[in-house]
Each structure stands twice: as structure tokens, then as C-alpha cells.
């Protein structure tokens, strides 16, 4: 219980404060939990690892949870993971049951968060212990598997794979680091740019650009749509909330939370897939499936427990394998790197206090999220009316601080922010997939080391197939995920063709 010494009033304040700010970010359409973490990352530079993580985990839980507010009240998902919340939450609000719908969503979010936290606490150490035995070969195949899973779940398989490899390629720009066993020589650096690109592009400016600046450019392109006025937010008092609405919903809540957690564990899949899968399963098994989409609380519960189930799940691969579960946890890798900590199989064993503090922070964040949103939902509902012309300039300024201070004052990092902000905006137009790109960018340098060192050690490509039963199993999983994806996309095309 030595980790209790880490739990200071500041730690608790940062978790609760982070959750509060996260809810606000999540509640404003066009702003996401990822953006909340990206913008607040510079605040963690001076906080130390545990306090910094306390803030970021609060932001993460709050950001995912806050998305239900505009989803229910305006029919606009505050975050991508709240998309299915609009299906039944918005019709409920239209019927004057806005407050009831919000409270149902908040309770379901809390259940999802706690179930996934439990899964994180139980699964991550076991998976990490198992992964400690992995050699470079298995580690390389794990990264390959992570990329294929992400690509397979992309809207377009081929573009998803291309995006992942593009991310890897860009991550290789710069010197092949001697500290990683490389030969210290430059590659992929255009002549004249050696001074700036010696170490390649820094991770955090890339992430802040792609998730922060790109989102604002996207809104600027649309003319920065006007926000909602107070008159648009109708919370309603038509039907009061009672916990009896959850009677007979235990299976739905647990199944949806479990689905969310499982989807979270799959690298890079993201919250929208979690809530869509949870919602579709709830619809399949419900006796009232005909009411789905018309204001059925069961659907709302499935969506919200599913997307909050993601929060703990996405941390499992991050903390046990060093592979981020979604874009927000990808930013957490940046926070760890800042503090000189490498996440991977050894992390939990070597940092038990940090691990326990993280679990505690997640627990407090979920409780704080529930308490704040349940009792003050009328006030949070007004957050959707904060004008964007006030928020966006401040966010842009915070993005600059995050990029500039990451390497203690390198202006090139600020330009990197702009380059990747533009890239992120353009990528969507070119139908590139951002999640595989980012995961490829993060994992590219590790993939290179594992691949090259495997070949240097064993001298044959066949080692990737014959090293161990785990390697063979990973190939089965890689081929399986690609085959399933091709099958599903063909079936979808067939259904679309037959109308």
C-alpha cells in the first residue's frame, strides 16, 4: 500500500479537476477527450508522473463521459463514441425526458467505467507477465497484429493498411539511434533539413497537430458553425428519473460494458466501434428491439456503458504491451515519455506504485464523473452553449505551448504542429485513416528495432514464423483479422449492391 503516499490532496484535486474539464471538452461538439488530453498535456510537464497521470486520466474519463450531453440534448455526438447515444437519447429529450435520459446515461457510463477498470486491474498485469517472455520476434509480430487489427476495422481496409505503413515510414525519418542499437546514421532526411530533422518529428507535436489543430481547421473550413443558444437546450422535466429503470438491465449493462472493454483492448479501434457494437448487441437481444431508435432506455444504456467500457480496456494493451488502445491513450504514451518512463511489459512490475496510483485515479475519476454529472447535470447541459469563437483561439494557443515546451523550447516543434495539423485535415479528404497512421507513427521506431535485431540475431526471415508457438499464433491472428475484414467488406458491398 505504499502507493497511498502518492495520493495527496493535489493528486485528488487533479483527478477531479481533470474530470471536470474533460466533461466540458466532451460536452462541446467538435471537441473530444483526445483534444482535452492534448491541450492539457503541457500542464503535466512540471507535475511529476503520478500527478500528471492523475490529471490526464481524469480528462480521459470525463471527456468520454461528457459526450453524452450534446448527444442527448442536441442529437449531436459530443465525441465519436457517443454516436449511438443520439439514437435513443435524443428522441427521449424530444419527448421531454432529457434529464431522465442524461441520468440514465450517466449511471450507465459509471457502470461501464467501473467494469472496465476491474478488467484493467485484472488483465493488464497478467498480460504483461506473459509478454515479458517475448523476444524481439514476438514483439515485432504484436505490432504487426496491432496494425492489421486497426486496418481491418478501418472504413477501408487498403487505405487503413496504407495509413498505418505511412505512419511507420514517417516515424523513421531522422537518425537510426545508437541508444537503440542503431548505427547513428541519418535516413529519409531531405538535404538542407538535417538540422531540424536529425531526431525526426517529435511525437507530441504530431499528436497535438493531428488531433488539436486539424479539428479546428476542420471547423474553420465549415465556417465555425454557430453554437447553440440557451433556448436550444431543452433538458425537460417530463418524466423524473428513478433507479427502477435499471431493473432487468443487469445483463445489458454488463454485456455492453464487456464489449466496450474488449473493443478497448483491441489496439486503435476507438470508442465509436465500442458503442456501435454494444448498441447492436443490445438491440439483437432486446424484447423491445422495435423501440430502438425511438427513445428506448435500453439502447441508451448499452451505448453509454459500451463507450465508457473503453476507458479501462484501452489502457490494457498500453500498460502491458506498450501499444495504445486508442488515440487518447496514444497521447498518454507521450506523457510517459516526457517523464522518462517506457511503457511495456516491464512497466507494471517495475512501477507498482504508479500502476496502483493509476488504478486509484481511474476509480476516483469515475466516481467524480458520476457525482458531478448526476447532481449538476443542469449546469453541464449549458456547456454546449459556450461559443466556439472563444474556445478555439485559446485551444490553438495551448497547442502552441504543448508543442514548444515538449523539448524545452524548440520552435521546429511548433512548425511540426502546423505541418501535421494540415496533414490531419487533408488526410480525411484523402480518405486516409488517422488512427492507424498515429499508431504506426508511435510504434514505427520499436517495430524497426525488433525487426532488424531479429534478423541480426537469427539471420533468416523464417524466424518470424518458426520462433515459437506464440509467433505462429500471432500469424494466425494476423491472417484471421485480415480475412475477416475482407469477408465483411465484401458482404457489405454485396448488401449495398442488392439494396
Amino acid at each position, binding site marked *: 500500500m505504499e502507493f497511498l503516499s502518492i495520493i495527496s490532496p493535489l493528486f485528488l484535486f487533479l483527478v477531479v479537476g481533470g474530470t471536470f474539464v474533460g466533461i466540458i471538452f466532451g460536452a462541446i461538439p467538435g471537441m473530444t477527450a483526445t483534444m482535452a488530453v492534448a491541450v492539457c498535456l*503541457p500542464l503535466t*510537464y*512540471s507535475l511529476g508522473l503520478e500527478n500528471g497521470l492523475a490529471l490526464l486520466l481524469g480528462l480521459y474519463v470525463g471527456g468520454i463521459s461528457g459526450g453524452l450531453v450534446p448527444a442527448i440534448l442536441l442529437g449531436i455526438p459530443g465525441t465519436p463514441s457517443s454516436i449511438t447515444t443520439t439514437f435513443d437519447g435524443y428522441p427521449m429529450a424530444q419527448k421531454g425526458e432529457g434529464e431522465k435520459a442524461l441520468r440514465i446515461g450517466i449511471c450507465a457510463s459509471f457502470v461501464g467505467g467501473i467494469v472496465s477498470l476491474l478488467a484493467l486491474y485484472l488483465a493488464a498485469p497478467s498480460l504483461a507477465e506473459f509478454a515479458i517472455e517475448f523476444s524481439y520476434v514476438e514483439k515485432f509480430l504484436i505490432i504487426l497484429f496491432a496494425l492489421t487489427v486497426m486496418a481491418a476495422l478501418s472504413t477501408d481496409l*487498403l*487505405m487503413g*493498411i*496504407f495509413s498505418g*505503413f*505511412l505512419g*511507420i*515510414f514517417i516515424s*523513421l525519418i531522422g*537518425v*537510426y539511434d545508437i541508444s537503440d542499437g*542503431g*548505427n547513428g*546514421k541519418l*535516413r*529519409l532526411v531531405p538535404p538542407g533539413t538535417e538540422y531540424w530533422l536529425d531526431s525526426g518529428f517529435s511525437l507530441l507535436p504530431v499528436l497535438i497537430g493531428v488531433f488539436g*489543430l486539424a479539428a*479546428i*481547421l476542420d471547423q*474553420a*473550413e*465549415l*465556417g*465555425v458553425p*454557430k453554437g447553440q443558444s440557451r433556448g436550444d437546450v431543452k433538458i425537460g422535466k417530463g418524466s423524473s428519473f428513478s433507479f427502477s429503470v435499471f431493473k432487468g438491465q443487469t445483463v445489458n449493462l454488463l454485456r455492453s460494458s464487456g464489449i466496450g472493454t474488449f473493443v478497448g483492448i483491441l489496439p486503435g479501434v476507438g470508442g465509436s466501434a465500442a458503442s456501435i457494437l454494444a448498441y447492436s448487441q443490445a438491440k439483437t437481444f432486446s424484447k423491445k428491439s422495435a423501440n430502438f431508435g425511438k427513445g428506448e432506455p435500453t439502447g441508451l444504456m448499452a451505448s453509454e456503458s459500451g463507450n465508457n467500457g473503453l476507458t479501462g480496456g484501452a489502457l490494457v494493451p498500453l500498460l502491458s504491451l506498450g501499444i495504445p488502445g486508442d488515440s487518447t491513450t496514444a497521447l498518454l504514451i507521450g506523457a510517459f515519455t516526457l517523464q522518462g518512463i517506457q511503457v511495456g511489459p516491464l512497466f507494471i512490475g517495475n512501477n507498482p506504485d504508479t500502476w496502483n496510483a493509476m488504478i486509484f485515479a481511474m476509480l476516483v475519476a469515475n466516481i467524480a464523473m458520476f457525482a458531478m454529472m448526476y447532481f449538476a447535470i443542469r449546469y453541464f447541459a449549458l456547456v454546449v452553449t459556450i461559443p*466556439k*469563437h*472563444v474556445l*478555439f*483561439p*485559446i485551444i*490553438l*494557443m*495551448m497547442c*502552441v*505551448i504543448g508543442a*514548444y*515546451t515538449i523539448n524545452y*523550447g524548440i*520552435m521546429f516543434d*511548433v*512548425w511540426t504542429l*502546423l505541418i501535421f495539423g*494540415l496533414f490531419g485535415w487533408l488526410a480525411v*479528404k484523402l480518405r486516409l485513416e488517422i488512427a492507424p497512421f498515429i499508431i504506426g507513427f508511435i510504434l*514505427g521506431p520499436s*517495430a*524497426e528495432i525488433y*525487426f*532488424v535485431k531479429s*534478423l*541480426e540475431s537469427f*539471420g*533468416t*526471415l*523464417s524466424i518470424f514464423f*518458426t520462433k515459437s508457438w506464440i509467433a505462429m499464433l500471432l500469424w494466425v491472428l494476423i491472417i484471421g483479422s485480415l480475412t475477416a475484414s475482407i469477408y465483411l467488406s465484401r458482404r457489405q458491398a454485396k448488401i449495398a449492391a442488392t439494396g
Partner: protein
Amino acid sequence: MGNLGQVTIDFERSHLVFPILIGSILALLGIAILITRRDRIAASGPNWRQTFADMDKLRFFGTLVLTVLYFSLMVPVGNFWPNTGLGFLICSIPYVLATGLLFMHERPLRQVLVMLVIAVIGPSFVWWLFTEIFFLTLP
């Protein structure tokens, strides 16, 4: 599978092994995309024209121009008062004000004044927080 795929890596050229491999895969994937989506790519011209036509050009390009100016001026301005972060503060106030005004749809005097107050207080608070409390380097 004894000798199948035998590879010897020359340490002096080991920095090129993975980039060449990934570059080759990217090229193959690029060709596959060009072949399988040739119709869509060929027809993309009108889509781009439509995107450009629908775009709020003033706000989009205005944001870009202001951001490039902001980034370009921070360091030269900051060089007048080295290690104080004043370059950041002095450039951030007009930047926040200008982008805020650019993003507004109507600009009644009251809202403009509110934006002006935010543009002064926001960057000043952030500057104070990061330089005085967190001791971080700002331009």
C-alpha cells in the same frame, strides 16, 4: 525452412533496411490503391472543386495566415526580452483576438469587447501559469 529467406545485415547499412522495406510496401499499396480505386481517383477533380467551393475560405485561410504569422513572429519578438516568454504573450494577445473575431458570426460591440477582454486575460493567465508557476520555457 532451414535456408529459406536467409538475410545478412551489414551494420553500416542497417539504418536503411527497414525504411527500404516499409517504402517498398508503401509503393505496392499505393499501386494497389491506384488500380482498385482508379475510377474514384479519376473522378475526384469535381469533388475537390466542390470541397473548395463549399469551404468558408475566409475563416479557413484566415486561420492559416494568422497562425503562420503568429508562429513566425513569436521568436523575433521574444528576442527583445530573452528568457521571459514575452514573445509568446505579446503575440498571443492579438492572435487570440484576431482568430476570435474571425470565428465570430456577428460582431456587435459588446461581444467584441468581451473577446478583447478574453484575449488579454487568457494569454496573460497562461503566460503567468507556465512561466511563474511551472517554470517552463516560452518564446
